């Protein structure tokens, strides 16, 4: 019997970016890069662990927008092209380095092999649909899949209208069920954003647990007897797991975290910015605008020294060392916690999935090494899914309501509500009020009628405008113009549909065009917005 448990949560999310109206939109590369750098490496890790018979379980939250994009025919086709173009560049790099830069030739060969393998996994193993891979490992019993809010709306700032939160939750659960054919037991609340009372809607949506940041648990209505190492019952049976701060720091911290090690690959050294433009031009944006290509030859190095050449063997060794360190820390933590606990403690370690492989190139290797080492007999903890912990070890749970919180700046909502993005909220709130009016007034419209289609499209437009990514980008200062345009475009589309519906002059042609461009949540139920009985 293990003394305690560790639950690793990987939250995979990207905003819905889908532009059939453009030939090769830059922002769709977010998905392609996440697929090649993060999701395929993680899937290859799952495949290797399965083949080795390693005993483990982790939780993977797939946001409904990411699910929709992974399943989208156009994006899958474009992603395949992207991988092939990257492979073409890697081939070209092998030739270039053989003659002109022999010091980099081995690395060029490494990228060529890596990209060939990625292409094989994406195209041949999973037929360009990575959802197949996640379902495979779900069925193998090693991955617990959970959902998130429909478009990753930051719920504490949307609950001016409860219907907005209801729609985010219910549409998120519905999209997840339709894509994966299972009901999610838990949810990753976007940005860990929780407010007291949310558990009521979570229960209605059939969800059994969520995650709160550490202080959300520690500042609960009743002091948590077991700290963040046991879930709380919010009073209605919905459980709140708390994030373990030390696990976060070991991976996230810019100063103490593993990813900053000098032997690891430097993200900001990329041939897209370093090689002659004429050479790299076919692989960057139109007009010769340089972008990252994913081929990077240097390591972090440290200090002000010139960047040294990346050594994948040294980096792999370091990833193993860091995995062992993480394992040792967790063992000590379990030893420390167990005497004070009335039930086996659970350490909850959530991370953005996109950290692994993209920003932290060695992240999947670190995770795989940790999982393999954790599967040793003399280990005092076991990797577990949250549902298994709730069923087998959590009862009885202390009843208390977590406090309002997020995992953002200083633990609350400032990053999503500040002078860079506050202008969006009056528009979002008004659109929600209008959507409620539509849902109430047209609640008995026959399904599949033109009016029904317009109402569904209005709901899609509103949901897409509510994504937490847009205010986040506006604050962080990257691609601000795109984020602002997405909010204003979706709200304009919503306003257009509201006007069309209320004046009973729906243009079939224009509605169809909007359905193609914002092709998400095909069976969305606009009745989520009904406020009347």
């Amino acid at each position, binding site marked *: 019997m293990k003394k305690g448990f560790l639950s690793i949560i990987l939250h995979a999310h990207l905003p819905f970016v889908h532009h059939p109206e453009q030939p090769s939109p830059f922002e769709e590369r977010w998905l392609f890069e996440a697929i090649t750098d993060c999701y395929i490496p993680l899937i290859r890790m799952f495949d290797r662990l399965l083949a080795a018979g390693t005993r483990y379980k982790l939780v993977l939250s797939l946001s409904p927008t990411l699910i929709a994009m992974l399943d989208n025919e156009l994006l899958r086709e474009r992603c395949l092209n992207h991988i092939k173009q990257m492979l073409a560049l890697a081939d070209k790099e092998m030739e270039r380095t053989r003659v002109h830069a022999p010091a980099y030739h081995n690395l060029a060969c490494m990228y060529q092999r890596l990209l060939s393998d990625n292409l094989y996994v994406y195209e041949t193993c999973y037929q360009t649909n990575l959802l197949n891979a996640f379902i495979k490992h779900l069925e193998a019993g090693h991955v617990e899949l959970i959902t998130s809010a429909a478009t990753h709306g930051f719920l504490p700032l949307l609950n001016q209208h409860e219907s907005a939160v209801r729609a985010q939750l219910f549409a998120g659960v519905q999209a997840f069920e339709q894509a994966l054919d299972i009901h999610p037991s838990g949810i990753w609340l976007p940005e860990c954003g929780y407010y007291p009372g949310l558990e009521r809607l979570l229960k209605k949506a059939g969800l059994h647990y969520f995650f709160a940041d550490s202080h959300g648990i520690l500042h609960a209505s009743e002091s948590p007897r077991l700290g963040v190492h046991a879930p709380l019952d919010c009073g209605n049976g919905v459980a709140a797991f708390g994030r373990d701060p030390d696990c976060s720091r070991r991976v996230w911290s810019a100063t103490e975290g593993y990813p900053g090690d000098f032997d690891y690959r430097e993200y900001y050294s990329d041939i897209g910015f370093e090689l002659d433009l004429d050479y790299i031009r076919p692989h960057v944006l139109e007009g010769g605008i340089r*972008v990252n290509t994913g081929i990077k030859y240097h390591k972090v190095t440290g200090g002000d020294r010139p960047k040294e050449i990346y050594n994948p063997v040294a980096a792999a060794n370091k990833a193993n060392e860091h995995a062992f360190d993480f394992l040792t820390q967790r063992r000590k933590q379990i030893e420390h916690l167990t005497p004070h606990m009335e039930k086996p403690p659970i350490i909850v370690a959530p991370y953005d999935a996109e950290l692994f492989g993209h920003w932290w190139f060695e992240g999947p290797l670190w995770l795989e090494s940790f999982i393999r080492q954790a599967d040793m007999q003399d280990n005092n903890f076991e990797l577990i899914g949250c549902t298994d912990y709730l069923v087998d070890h959590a009862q009885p749970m202390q009843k208390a309501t977590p406090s309002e919180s997020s995992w953002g700046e200083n633990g609350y909502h400032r990053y999503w509500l500040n002078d860079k993005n506050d202008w969006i909220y009056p528009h979002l709130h008004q659109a929600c009020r209008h959507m409620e009016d539509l849902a109430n007034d047209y609640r008995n419209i026959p399904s599949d009628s033109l009016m029904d289609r317009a109402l569904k499209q209005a709901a899609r437009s509103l949901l897409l405008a509510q994504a937490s990514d847009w205010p986040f980008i506006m604050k962080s200062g990257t691609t601000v113009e795109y984020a602002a345009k997405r909010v204003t475009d979706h709200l304009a589309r919503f306003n257009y549909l509201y006007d069309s519906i209320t004046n009973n002059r729906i243009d079939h042609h224009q509605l169809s065009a909007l359905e193609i461009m914002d092709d998400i949540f095909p069976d969305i139920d606009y009745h989520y917005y009904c406020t009347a009985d």
Partner: protein
Amino acid sequence: MTRSWRSRYSPHLTFSSEQLRQVGQTISEEFSLRGSGATVPELVLMPVDPYHLHAYWHIDAGDTPAVQKGQQPGGKSDLRLRIFCQYKAQPGQSNSEPWFDVAVGTERNWCDVRLPLDNLRCRAALGIKSDNQPFAPLLFSNRVQAPKAGPSAVRTAAAERLKGAQLDRPTAPSDRPTASAASNRYDERLIDAIIRQALSDQNIRVKLKPQADREQDCKTEQTLIAPALSSHTIARRHIE
């Protein structure tokens, strides 16, 4: 070859990319966002953190002359945001609802409000307060609850023993980290920003600046908080 697109709901209709783009552009132009968003008079409060609320409002056109009448040189006005805080002073005492006023200009329709305590349940009224005249409310807000800034008062012995694992408490306004301190501590926001930025391929390093003190713009003109509240460390700022 020009590619065409079909709606899954109307497969007989086909669109070129250019046609889709034109539909999107036409709608964006004809239904672009106008004004602040609100079309009905309203005052909305939103919690930001334990010590801050965000307020926005839309004043009815009929009330605009009254608001403008109170406008003074230099952008000052008689427009006030009155914040009511539900507060239980002591056990056995009845709940009180002390309030304080925040002077707001007419040039914008939002304000950040600094709260004296965390975990307050608040509502607000927007109105006009002229010299020697009682406050004349124009709009009333929703009620909101600001988050808690610390743990519940009752702490069990078991929780004390686990304290070693309880890190990263959020900061109150008085101990908010400076820019240099913030850069030395674990900051998930920074890391998250870098990841997202990395995915955006912009390759521009994020340099986070200290949070601007926006509430300085919304000057607390009067502090009319009940004694029970004022006994706490409150950022009382008597301006002008």
